[in-house]
Structures are given as structure tokens and as C-alpha cells.
């Protein structure tokens, strides 16, 4: 039986990787992948907690459905898929007009 904290540590590590990737990389696609990484780190936390609650169901009231954390992951995945569709479309549009994927050069809104 793997303790809960391990999952959480792994999730935190993944999330931090995502954050640092987002902050340090210049390529928009890499940044996009970092965002996915963060989302999935959060998903991992969800399922880890859902499993934990499921094992200790007696601790909580019956009204909490033990599977709700896992169902939530599906929502996140759907939203992430939608976001990926929109995001990739934007990336393509950016590339077509600017002919670059360097995020530092996409700064037309700057004063």
C-alpha cells in the first residue's frame, strides 16, 4: 500500500516542473505542454485523495460519494481537451501571422 503522501509529493513535483517549464521556456508549444503537466499533476492529487477517502470511508459521512474525486478528473480532462483545441488553434494563428513560436516576440499588446 503506497501512502498518500507519496502521491502528493509526486504531484507537487510534477506541478513544479510544469510551473518552471511555463516560466522558463520560450516556445509556445512547450509552455502549452507545461500547462498540461500542471493539470495532470492536479488530476493525480484528485485521484489520490479519492482513493484515500474510499479506503477510509467510515471516517466521513455517508453523504460524500467516494467516487466524486475521480469523476472530477474526467471533468478536468474534458475541459483540458477543449482548452487544448482552442489553444492549439491560437498557436497556429499566431504562427501564421508572426512566423515565430517565441513567446517573447508575441507582445503587440504591450504599451
Amino acid at each position, binding site marked *: 500500500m503506497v501512502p498518500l503522501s507519496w502521491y502528493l509529493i509526486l504531484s507537487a513535483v510534477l506541478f513544479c516542473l510544469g*510551473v518552471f517549464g*511555463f*516560466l*522558463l521556456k520560450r516556445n509556445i508549444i512547450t*509552455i502549452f505542454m507545461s500547462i498540461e503537466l500542471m493539470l495532470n499533476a492536479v488530476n493525480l492529487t484528485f485521484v489520490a485523495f479519492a482513493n484515500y477517502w474510499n479506503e477510509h470511508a467510515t471516517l466521513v459521512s455517508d453523504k460524500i460519494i467516494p467516487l466524486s474525486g475521480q469523476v472530477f478528473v474526467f471533468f478536468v480532462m474534458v475541459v483540458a481537451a477543449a482548452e487544448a483545441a482552442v489553444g492549439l488553434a491560437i498557436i497556429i494563428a499566431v504562427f501564421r501571422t508572426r512566423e515565430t513560436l517565441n*513567446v*517573447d516576440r*508575441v*507582445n*503587440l*499588446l*504591450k*504599451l
Partner: protein
Amino acid sequence: MTEPSLNLWVIPLLPLAGAAINGLFGRRFKNAMVSFVALFFTAASFGWAVWAVMQGLHLSLPHVETVGTWISAGNFSAPFGFYLDQLSMVMVLVVTGVGFLIHIYSVGYMAHEGGYYRFFAYLNLFMFFMLTLVLANNYLLMFVGWEGVGLASYLLIGFFFLKDSAADAGKKAFIVNRIGDFAFLIGMFLIIQHFGSLNYAVVFDKVGHLGSEAGWGLLTAIALCLMFGATGKSAQVPLYVWLPDAMEGPTPVSALIHAATMVTAGIYMIARSSSIFSRAPHALEIVAIIGCLTAIFAATIGMAQTDIKRVLAYSTVSQLGYMFLACGVAAYSAGIFHLMTHAFFKALLFLGAGSVIHALGGEQDMRRMGGLRKQIPKTFWVMTVATFAIAGFPPLAGFFSKDEILGQVFSSPHGSHVLWAIGVLTAGITSFYMFRLWFMTFFGELKLGKDLGEAHAAPVQHGSAPSHGHDDHGHGGVHESPWVMIAPLMVLALGSIVAGWAGVPAFMGGSNRFEKFLAPAITSTAQAALTATERTSEAAGQPAEEQQENPNQGWLLAGTSVGVALVGFFFAWLLYYKQPELPDRITAKIHGTYLMVLHKYYVDEGYGLLFVKPLLALSTVVFWRGVDQGVIDGLVNGAGQASQGIGNELRRMQSGNIRSYAAWVAAGGAAVLAYMIWLGVRK
């Protein structure tokens, strides 16, 4: 028994309706329609007033009617209430009666002026406010009328608003009046604070119950404030300067507002507050001195003026001084008596002067007039009546009222022989300048269009430009005025003859009915002393008011005033009829004095130097540049600049670099996380 309602509120409201109709729709009316509306509502108001007075005489006075509550706050309340007693009866009849006559006259006088409907709308508006003033049953409603007549006066002085001098005169009248109004307001605040009400009945009752020691200072303060308010409206020293300039308005306005009615509001107010003034002997003394000073001061200025309307204006100021003097010696009814007779003959003088000006196509300078006796005989005769009336020749109105005042000044316990002597001297000067006007205008020969030598050049505002456009309608030569103008003059002339007979003094076999009639509405000083709860020994020891007048003394006083009037007549005859070249030589001899009088003792210039310039400088340097531009604008601009600066700094955060935004988000998230961990650790 319940008293029948007289619906007093109708009296002021009728002219208001006329003003509203003419003001809102008059632009589209024909002139005849405008005249009909204005005359109808004024006549209706006069009719209602006569009816109300006839009814009122059978009721127990004062008769109070309250229409509704206007202001109610805490213990204080001010109703829309109307108050009919002997005093307001006289005032209402004078205002509506003389007002109606002047409305008729204006139909002829203003026939060829632009803004005909505007003129009558203002005139009716004036009637509304004036009637509110005299009929109000509390000081606050009176103040509404008081301010309202000021507004109407401002509008009418500046009627020819394209002319700078008229617009300036209107502003001057308004501003000078505000100074007096300020004091009136303070007086009202004092009354509210100490008596908790502004209703006449309540205030006068409470004044009557004040202990003589306790009330003295308070009542003196209130009386002085009210008096200063009255000096503004009634054109007394030191606030008289606006009235002569007010002659820029059309002549009927000068007659109605600046001679017969509005300027007497101050006298009315003092007479109305007689129970306050009678308890404040020092204030009374000051009223008498101011009145006396004004009377002689304005009369001497009147001697040197050459503009016919300005002579009459200074004469008005001087006569108002008489009324003030009468109030100041606690002879309120004598003051109101003179107010009434003065309304007749001064309105007549102004309207007659208007008729002369009309005849000469706008000429106002008396030096270009002369010999009009034959050309405009009707105007000549009514002007003669008015001139003799104001000069105080028996049996015309002015004689009785002026003699009543002088007699009271001489014999009243508040009067003094010095005041009397100045009053008599003023009567002589009055006679002199009025006959000077009479001789210069109607005798000798016409000098129309004469070029006046520079040596005599009058002060600037006397400029010979005709102040109204009678030139436009191309009458040739001198012409008598139409009947619509002459008829009111005839009625007023009749009034100037008989109005005085209401108050024939006892020593002439009369019974002074006017004073007896007014007596219940007036609180004399003796009554005031009696009603005081705490009677001091001196007050009780004072002689009763009804002391028997010595008939010989009465005849002597009357003879003296007629005598000085004759002397004035003689000098005017000598200087302006018999030897018309004499005045030039005399003025050349006393050139300095003459110039000083001609320039009205440089009072306007003095006020300019003493008040206007320092005020302007103060306003420019301190209030405009300092407070307004420095502090207020500074605060606003400072706030703007500060937010601009802060924004400029914060702008650097909006780098456009997505990763830096993300870093801020991450840092924020980390901060929240750290805080929560810290919370957990602390537990």
C-alpha cells in the same frame, strides 16, 4: 362665532396669474391682449383688496388666515398665512391702487417699446411679491416678498438690458440690497432663536412679556438688524446708492417700484415691528438719526442734479428719510401716513416726468427743457399739483403728512429739536429743488438739442443718449401724451390733493383719523412700557402718549414748514425764472462745493475705493488665485497628477511578457500557500 374667510390669498395670487400668462404666452399675444391680461388681473386684485378691506373693517382685527404650512421643522413652523390689520389694509390699498394706475399709464408709455409682454409680466410679478410682503403673517413669508420685489426690481431696472448702464444699475441695486437683506436674515435668526417663531402674533406677544431688563439688549440687537435691512430696501444712508442708479429702468417702473411701493417696504417693516422697536429706544434713536441724515443728504444732492429723473430719485431718498425719521421718533403712523401721501404725489411726479420725457422724445436733461407749460398743459397742471404737494403747501397731501412728522419730531419724547431743525431745513431744500425742476421744465424757453458747454458737463451717467426709444416712432415735435397716460395722472393728482385730508391734525379742527385708524396695529412706546411684565419706575413715570398738544405750538410748527417751503419757492423763482443767469455765477463762485454736490459727495467713488476695490483685490489675490486656484484646483489637479504618476509606475508591471505574468500568478499562489501553511503550523 367663526369669522368669515376673506380668501386673502387671492389678492397676491391674481397678479401672479397675470405674470404667468403674460410671461409664458405673451410673446405670441398682440400688445392689446398683453395689456388686457395685465390690467385685468391687477384690477381684479385691487377690487378684491377693496372688498377685503371693507369686510375686514367689520371683523376683529388683526384677521389672520392660514392657507397651509410651508415649512415645519421641529418646534419651528412657518405657514402660508395672511394677516390683515389696519397697517396691511393701508399698504394693500396703496400697492394695488397706485399699481393699477401705473399699469394703465404703462400701456401708453411702453406702447412702442420692444419686450412689451416682458415688461408687463415683470410688473405683475412685482405686484405679486409686494402683496405677499405686506400681507404675510410671519417674517419668513415677508422675506419671500422682500426678496421677490428685489428680483422684480432688478429685472425692471435692467429692462433695457442691451444698455450697459442699465444692466450695471440692476446689478448694483441687487447687490446693495443683498447687504441689507443679510442683516434682515440675522435679525430673523435672532428672533427664531429667542422666540421660537416668526409669526407676528407670537413674536409680538412674547416681546410684550419680556422683562424690561432681560429684553433690552436682545431687542436692540434685533431692531438694529431689522433696521439695517430696511436701510437697504428703503434706500437710506449708507445703502441708498442704488436708488438713483435705478432710474435706468423705464419711468413707470421708477414710479411704481422705486418711488411709490417697493422702497417703502423698509418703512412698513419697521412699523410692523413697532412692538420690537418701541422696546429698543437706542435702536429708535439710530433710526431717527439715519432718517434725518438721509433726508438732508439726499436733498442737497437733489439741488444740483440736471437729469429730471435723478432729481426725483434723490427726492425719493430724501422723503424716505422723513419716513424713517418718523419711525425713529416712534411716530409710526405719521411715517405710514407720509408713505401713503408720498405714494400718490411721487408716483404722479415720476409719471409726469415720464410724460415730459415722452413729449420730448426721450430727453431727460432739464437744461434742454423749458417752456413746456403751453405745449403740454395737462402734464403741466398735474405736475404743478404734485410739486406743490411735495413742497408741503396746504391743503395738499404732502403738507399734512410732512407737518405731522415734523410735529411729532418736535414734541415726541423720542424726538429732539435738532432733528426737527434739520427736518425743516430739508423741507426748504425740497421745496427749492422741486420748484427748480418745475421752473426749468415748464417755464422759460425750450432748448431742445442745445449743446451743453463742457464746463457744465454732468457726470458720465447723465449722458444725453435717450434712455428709451421714443425717437424711433417718428413723432414730429413736442406732443402731449395720449389719454391712457393722462387719465392715471389725473387720478393721482386728485389723490395728491385729498389723501392728506385723512389725517388733519387736531389743532386744525380735524381729528387725525388716520392715526386713530392705525393705532390698534401699532405698539407705541408707552404701550410697550406698560405691557412689560417688569415695569421700571421710569417707564411707569413716563407721560402718557396722548398728551394734549398745544394748539399754538401746532400752528407755529405748521407755519414754519410752510414758511420754509415759501422760501424755497422764492429762491427757485429767483434763480431759475427771474434771473436764469444767476445760478451759473453762483456755481462759479462756490465751484468746489458745487462740484462736490454735483458728484453726489463722491459717495459712489468713496464706496468704490473703500469697499469695492479692496474686495476685488481680496477676491482676486486670496480667493481666486489663492483658495480657488491654489487650494481647490490644486487638490483636484494634485489628485489627478498623483494617480497619473502611480499609474506610470505601475505600468511597468504590464510588460507584455506572458511569463512574467505567470511568475506573478505563481508567486501569488505560493504566497497564499505559504500563508495557509503558516496558519496550520501556528495551530
